[in-house]
């Protein structure tokens, strides 16, 4: 019941709000309230899932095995909670700052509906439908602001990601042909009997589709233009919420459905992750612009997630879950803070910067710690060295940005500081992130439990 409500609420209100003028404060506030309600529903669902295990709902009262399965497990609900939290922060930010586009609140709600749906479905084709719902909303969102750079960014974002979506669809067709089913659980059970070549081909298709979403090297080419060109709130949404599709997809499809292929490709994944990590970090140091540095940093940070997935096993996967959660929160805070001026903002930005660099007590430290554990579990000194180099480079570029932005006389010092509520929101988000770093136990337990449910469904 909570599951269906959490899906229907953002979708239905989103359809309604798209028709209204989002520039009116009341409409924006309604969107914030609805996102908050969705967040509460998901939190209730999470409490239920943690207490009594995963929950399956067969849609349309079809018998089991015929209807589409909606499935709420720890991994899915955790990602849904995270994404809705990011959307809530970005929308609240934009509503306080003044929405400039009439469709913004409605589109964010539709995006929330699509994201919640894809994290809570147990069917591959249904995943594609929700995926397209979320992506279509984000294509429209990326034009937000309406400037020339936004428009160019939106065009690139849409074209590249549409291509990724169709590659995903080709792989869905391949899955159906080889296994005769689309329910994720059945696919995972039957995948072991499929011809290894066909299975590897299908798995590669899924990998490419999710890597494009995540912006992994060498599929990153669209990302810097888009993140740097979008409005701060939209960049926060794209990097904090939409990119979660990629991380979740790699975990769910890679570790949950194609474990054999994942093991086979482990070295390739680690090499790609390492390349992504170094490439993102080095270019982030080299760029001067705040938006672009953060964008390249995003490419580098997802490299960590891929390395962790490549290492695999309970330790590696738990590190991947934890790192994606922390990274998504960091990026949201940093992108939102770039749009705010005035006292206290520098402090909020510094918390985000410390978190990206992995300095305690910020949660990035816990993420890095888990990554080191994964590196040691893989018994690879080279990997540990790589992680240290990546962290060192992230200290350099984050503080380069910090110094550039907050330590020198601002050429446009005449710009009035942002309204107090906006600064308060940024600081609240920073404090929330700091709190997860100071008390990381729930987050650790959550990622371990998510990985347990992921591995429990695995055949053999």
């Amino acid at each position, binding site marked *: 019941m909570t599951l269906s409500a959490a899906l229907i609420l953002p979708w239905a209100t989103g359809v309604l709000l798209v028709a209204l003028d989002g520039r009116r404060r009341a409409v924006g506030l309604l969107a914030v309230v609805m996102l908050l309600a969705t967040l509460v529903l998901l939190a209730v669902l999470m409490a239920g899932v943690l207490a009594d295990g995963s929950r399956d709902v067969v849609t349309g009262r079809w018998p089991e095995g015929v209807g589409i399965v909606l499935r709420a497990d720890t991994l899915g609900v955790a990602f849904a909670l995270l994404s809705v939290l990011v959307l809530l922060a970005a929308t609240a930010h934009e509503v306080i700052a003044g929405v400039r586009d009439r469709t913004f609140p409605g589109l964010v709600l539709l995006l929330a509906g699509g994201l919640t749906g894809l994290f809570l479905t147990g069917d591959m084709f249904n995943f*594609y*439908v929700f995926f397209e719902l979320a992506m279509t909303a984000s294509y429209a969102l990326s034009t937000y602001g309406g400037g020339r750079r936004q*428009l160019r960014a939106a065009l690139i974002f849409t074209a590249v990601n549409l291509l990724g979506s*169709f590659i995903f*669809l080709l792989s869905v067709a*391949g899955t*159906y042909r080889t296994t005769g089913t689309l329910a994720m659980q059945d696919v995972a059970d039957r995948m072991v009997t499929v011809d290894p070549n066909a299975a590897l081909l299908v798995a590669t298709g899924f990998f490419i589709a999710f890597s494009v979403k995540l912006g992994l090297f060498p599929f990153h080419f669209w990302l810097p*233009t888009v993140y740097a060109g979008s409005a701060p709130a939209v960049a926060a949404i794209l990097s904090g919420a939409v990119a979660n599709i990629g991380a979740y997809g790699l975990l769910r499809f890679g570790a949950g459905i194609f474990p054999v292929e994942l093991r086979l490709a482990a070295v390739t994944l680690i090499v790609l992750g390492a390349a992504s990590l170094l490439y993102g970090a080095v270019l982030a140091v080299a760029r001067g612009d705040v938006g*672009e540095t953060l964008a390249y940093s995003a490419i580098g940070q997802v490299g960590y997630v891929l390395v962790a997935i490549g290492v695999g096993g309970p330790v590696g996967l738990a590190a991947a879950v934890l790192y994606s959660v922390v990274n998504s929160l960091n990026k949201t805070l940093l992108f939102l803070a770039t749009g705010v001026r005035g006292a206290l903002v520098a402090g909020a930005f510094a918390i985000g910067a410390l978190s990206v660099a992995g300095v305690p007590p910020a949660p990035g430290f816990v993420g890095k710690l888990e990554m080191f554990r994964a590196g040691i579990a893989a018994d690879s000194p080279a990997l540990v060295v790589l992680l240290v180099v990546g962290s060192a480079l992230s200290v350099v570029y984050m503080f380069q940005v910090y110094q550039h932005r907050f330590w020198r006389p601002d050429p446009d010092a005449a710009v009035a500081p942002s309204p107090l509520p906006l600064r308060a929101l940024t600081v609240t988000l920073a404090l929330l992130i700091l709190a997860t770093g100071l008390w990381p136990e729930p987050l650790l337990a959550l990622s371990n439990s998510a990985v347990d449910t992921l591995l429990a469904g695995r055949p053999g």
Partner: protein
Amino acid sequence: MIFAIALAAAVLFGCGAYLLLKRDLVRVVAGIMLISQSATVTIMGSSLSRGSAAIDVQPGEAVSDPLPQALALTALVIGLATVALLLALVHRVVLVFRTAERDELAAGEAEHEADLAAERLADQEETG
């Protein structure tokens, strides 16, 4: 039959990929449309059985697999919506930039790069 479908999907994908590399934005959109059709054809080709339509089936008669048809219909509708959105975006770009060539769009980015380079130079002078 499977071979014909595979060939059709491959040709569609190939033509689409070729068009994607063109400079004209309208051709890029056409390329994405062809690739979306290639995905639909592949879905049809992934049917597990062939025969008559899966409605009012006589016992013993071969039935065509209805699931890929439902998937293809859904994929077509989604493809239509996203391509329409993309075309609207291209229309907007043409209105704003007065061009549908990718190179001319990149000119704006070159200006941004030049600004960044100037900023870095100013930084160096400040520290050096």
